[in-house]
């Protein structure tokens, strides 16, 4: 049983994410969802339970947290290892080993269990969570979803009575989320207590017993499962939560397991073309690319359309209208991100070219024409203030113009701040500001809403529409059906690097 009594918490030197007057009791075997906007304190609440607060993240803590009769404050952090297991948001940074087997046995080895017991546990966990196909692999070559599965396995191998998950689905695609849901169901059937903080709600509605809604560090409301599942769309919108019930059409469009698509006739030589080509349209031609080109000793073979069978990306032609928002969907590993990388000229061996306003752009010219806002936007911020970040992108630095751009993105008041000190959404807008400053005509977004709450997702979608209105052509790759439905003029489904469907 988890008992949190009169807890107040404030991170050292941070305004966001504190907690006010939290009282919460979680019974054994219960599955509780923590929901609310980013920065409402859900993550902080999970850290109270696994002891990261106060032992790892420092701050002012008052009140009492008791887990299975142990007061967290008096425990050493490591003594909680066998009791509370935690799965975190970012699959890339939570593994210690380089191989999957070592990761599963990492926890039990740490607490010094006998070898035979560890092997038995490993066998059991692998069978329970269906990890057979992932064993003996390098963790660096797994997809985000696969890494997250291994992280779950690694936590489960310690046989904790309580499992915490902090936004585990942020970086996952549709099918990986369903695997995650199956894992949760299994743990629930085994009688484990589960606390999950999450923005995406649809996959949890059958799993949870109770939903706790937080706002600005306080618990504001609670629903039980039935109440929660029956919340109407407008009620959820009032709480700024993402939908609980997904419409059938989303499932059809994004699940990718729908049999209709399996038989979709590929048109290898000619792309599906729904309307005749007009001169001011933007035409993408010959996007072929592979990560494993035929290698000579020192050189790689130059690709040509004939190599289509071995290519990761094979899009002979695609036309879009200027000012259109094109959504790109498809499962992990279908080639969405790779396509975007080719489109902005990051993959040198890709032979694709773009025709726009009668001009042909290929190779290095593409990097001038297109600008990608990356999934991990932290990699794109180089300077020590928002303003200089924008100036850096301009061919001729012009402060007035830079300020105009910042004002149009609601960033003017932050112009002297360090980009890294901003929130995720603001960082994204800084990256967009530098794209505008660089005068890019085509903007590419790689998973712009992964891990965002409802309000921020809405904001991104409004922003994309606004950019399109200003004449930018936008490609956005996404797992987020709500975003696609919200703002895309049409969506392209990519499968095995081919365009499987345009709608």
């Amino acid at each position, binding site marked *: 049983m988890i008992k949190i009594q009169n807890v107040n918490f404030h991170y050292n*030197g941070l305004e966001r994410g504190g907690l006010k007057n939290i009282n919460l009791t979680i019974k054994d075997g219960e599955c509780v969802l923590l929901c609310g906007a980013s920065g409402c304190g859900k993550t902080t609440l999970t850290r109270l339970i696994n002891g990261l607060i106060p*032992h790892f993240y420092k701050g002012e803590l008052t009140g009492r947290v008791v887990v299975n009769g142990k007061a967290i404050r008096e425990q050493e952090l490591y003594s909680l290892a066998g009791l509370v297991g935690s799965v975190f948001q970012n699959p890339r940074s939570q593994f210690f080993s380089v191989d999957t087997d070592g990761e599963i046995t990492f926890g039990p080895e740490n607490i010094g269990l006998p070898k035979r017991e560890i092997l038995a546990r490993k066998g059991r966990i692998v069978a329970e969570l269906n990890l057979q196909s992932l064993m003996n692999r390098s963790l660096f070559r797994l997809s985000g979803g696969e890494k997250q599965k291994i992280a779950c396995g690694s936590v489960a191998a310690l046989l904790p009575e309580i499992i915490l998950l902090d936004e585990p689905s942020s970086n996952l695609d549709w099918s990986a989320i369903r695997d995650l849901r199956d894992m949760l169901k299994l743990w629930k059937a085994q009688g484990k207590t589960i606390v999950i903080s999450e923005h995406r709600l649809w996959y949890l509605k059958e799993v949870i017993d109770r939903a706790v809604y937080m706002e600005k560090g306080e618990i504001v409301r609670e629903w039980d499962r039935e109440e929660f599942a029956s919340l109407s769309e407008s009620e959820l919108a009032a709480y700024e939560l993402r939908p609980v019930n997904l419409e059938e059409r989303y499932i059809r469009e994004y699940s990718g397991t729908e049999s209709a698509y399996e038989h979709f006739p590929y048109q290898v030589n000619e792309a599906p073309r729904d309307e005749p080509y007009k001169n001011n349209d933007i035409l993408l031609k010959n996007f072929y690319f592979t990560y494993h080109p035929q290698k000579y000793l020192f050189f790689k073979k130059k690709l040509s359309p004939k190599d289509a069978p071995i290519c990761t990306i094979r899009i002979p032609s695609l036309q879009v209208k200027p000012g259109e928002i094109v959504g790109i969907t498809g499962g992990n590993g279908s080639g969405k991100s790779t396509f975007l990388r080719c489109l902005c000229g990051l993959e040198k061996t890709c032979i694709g070219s773009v025709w726009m306003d009668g001009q042909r752009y290929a190779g290095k010219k593409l990097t001038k024409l297109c600008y990608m806002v990356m999934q991990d936007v932290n990699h794109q911020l180089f300077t*020590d203030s928002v303003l200089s970040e924008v100036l850096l992108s301009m061919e001729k630095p012009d402060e007035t113009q830079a300020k105009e751009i910042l004002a149009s993105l609601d960033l003017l008041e932050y112009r002297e*701040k*360090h980009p*890294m*000190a901003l929130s995720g959404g603001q960082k994204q807008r800084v990256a967009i500001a530098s794209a505008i400053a660089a005068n890019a005509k085509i903007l590419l977004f790689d998973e712009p809403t992964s891990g965002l709450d409802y309000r921020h997702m809405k904001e991104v979608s409004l922003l994309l529409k606004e950019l399109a209105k200003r004449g930018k052509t936008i490609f956005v790759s996404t797992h987020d059906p709500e975003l696609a439905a919200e703002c895309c003029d049409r969506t392209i489904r990519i499968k095995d690097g081919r365009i499987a469907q345009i709608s």
Partner: protein
Amino acid sequence: MNQNKLQARDFITIGIFTAILWVVQMVIMYLGFLSPFIVAGYAVLIPIVTGIPMMLYYARIEKFGMITITSVIVAILLFIFGMGLTGAPICIAAGLIADLIAKSGNYKSWKKTFVSYGVFSLWVVASYLPLVLTADSYKQSLLEGGYDASFVDTLFTLVTPKTYPVIIVICFISGMVGAVIGKAVVRKNFEKAGIV
């Protein structure tokens, strides 16, 4: 909880920053092979450039032992890359002394941090030592190998037993300069962003 003993978290910090330190210095080493002047310039370049990650590292250190362990790992790597025997012990000694200096300032005093990093930087000259001690035979073997006499002379005007103390001093000063620059960068970026 014993606050002075190194915890798992500290060991992870050590691993990460040592990895960064090593990668940065390898990059500089490779640039250096383009010219003998840069080879001699290691004593200046490496302490200054690695000053940036190292000052960020110092900002996260609160306990004794972290700098020492870093120097032990660097010594092991030096050994593997063939700069060992004489270089490795000096490297560890430099790390230990640097750690003690920083500790005397409780890891908070910036003046002591600058001195500490200056001492730590001496691991760079430690890797020169074999070159100095075996200068004659090394020179001979290069000449026998057909290297241009003027080139061999250039190399050995900069690094000889006579100039070696000067190089040590230069390296120490560069370390201090690197620490000041690194500290400025840390303040301008990492403190401003609120992550230190």
